[in-house]
């Protein structure tokens, strides 16, 4: 894993500000070590991880969890886990879908929203079903574009 940059407190605050602007909530990323790899991918790891360890650990494959990808237009495409962290408090760009649609969403299909909360068209949205945060999508004119990675989809699912 090639770490491009370990973010400073100031840079973490900038990411938090982008999240606040996009999802209307403050997320305490300062509770994590935040770093970036190629393609502006953002990762988070436990604060107890001392990055000096990588002077010793040369064969490092992965650190922490993938949080999301910073896009050029200052939007963040959140991973499922990133959405779970942000989505608990999000008040903006959130969409709710019903249970039948949630099953289709997990299978990888685009779905229709039941309810939108301050959601902007053509923007990334956090997709919820009841209390569960089930991932990220892009709100299009009359549907939500599915962004569940192929490896996480469950093609045959029990309803």
């Amino acid at each position, binding site marked *: 894993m090639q770490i491009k940059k370990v973010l400073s407190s100031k840079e973490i605050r900038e990411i938090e500000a982008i999240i606040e602007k996009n999802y209307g909530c403050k997320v305490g990323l300062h509770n994590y070590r935040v770093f970036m790899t190629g393609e502006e991918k953002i990762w988070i790891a436990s*604060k*107890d991880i001392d990055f000096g*360890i990588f002077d010793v650990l040369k064969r490092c494959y992965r650190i922490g969890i993938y949080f999301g990808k910073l896009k050029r237009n200052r939007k963040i495409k959140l*991973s499922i*886990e990133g959405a779970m962290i942000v989505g608990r408090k999000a008040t903006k760009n959130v969409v709710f879908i019903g249970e039948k649609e949630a099953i289709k969403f997990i299978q990888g299909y685009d779905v229709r929203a039941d309810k939108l909360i301050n959601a902007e068209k053509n923007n990334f949205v956090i997709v919820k079903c009841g209390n569960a945060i089930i991932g990220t999508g892009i709100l299009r004119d009359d549907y939500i574009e599915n962004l569940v990675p192929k490896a996480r989809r469950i093609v045959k699912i029990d309803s």
Partner: protein
Amino acid sequence: MFRERIEQMIPDADAFFAAEQEWKSIRANTLKISREELLERLQAKYEIKEMPWYENGFFIIGEDIAKNMEYYLGYYHIQEAASMLPPLVMEIERKDFVIDLCAAPGSKTTQLAMMMENSGVIIANDISISRIRALTHNIQKAGAANCIITNYDARYFDKTGLKADKILLDAPCTASGKIIKNKKMIEKWKYWRVKKMARLQKALIKAACNCLTKDGILVYSTCSVEPEENEEVIDYALQRFDIEVEKIELKEIKTRHGIKEWNGKKFEWATKAIRIWPQDNNTEGFFICRLRKC
């Protein structure tokens, strides 16, 4: 030959070969959901009962337990009931520095992350890149942010110079304890495989002992019932390193102590290690031993 060996180890060998497993087992991922909430969600879909020996473990009956919303969300992990035990005897504390030497596919690693509440550090190592992919997937899905995945040959991990408070060595093995799930494995059983695995396990425990800090804890486990892969490996380490076996006590699960004598070798310390036999709890067979560096 396998049957004769089992008959030498235990008086109820017939029960060992007849053991069947009706219930599957899962572990709630408390990094994402409380056990109560998960229980409530799953009770609506499956027949489910609590695991007596681990609060976050459940037995479950139903088709396709890996094909539902809760599984997709990483709310639970499908994990063999006996395999939840090694992390439980590690005396894990939140801020520990832990090495899981043979971590893939990550069931115990993510359990450790959960027990540490995403604090501290876990080095999750595995030699195989293809298995590391599964490990990566499971760690991401569990939301375990305290893990560093490395790709070393664990036999030489001590060359990194890293020392840890707690080490889990869930060693690769012949998996003869999995007989409860796969009776056909008896036909495939070969003694040379046992010997080959034992050689590997000795190299692994050597590296693990070298990576322990003073007073550090090493938990050695396998899902094999072969004394060559279990008691003999521990005996090998005891003779070469400044370590001692600590007694393991688990509640609400039937355990037996290690084999005290095998092939003319005596293992006086074996009463401190535990064996889980498939017929006792309808789980896989497991050997677990806790060692402390003096």
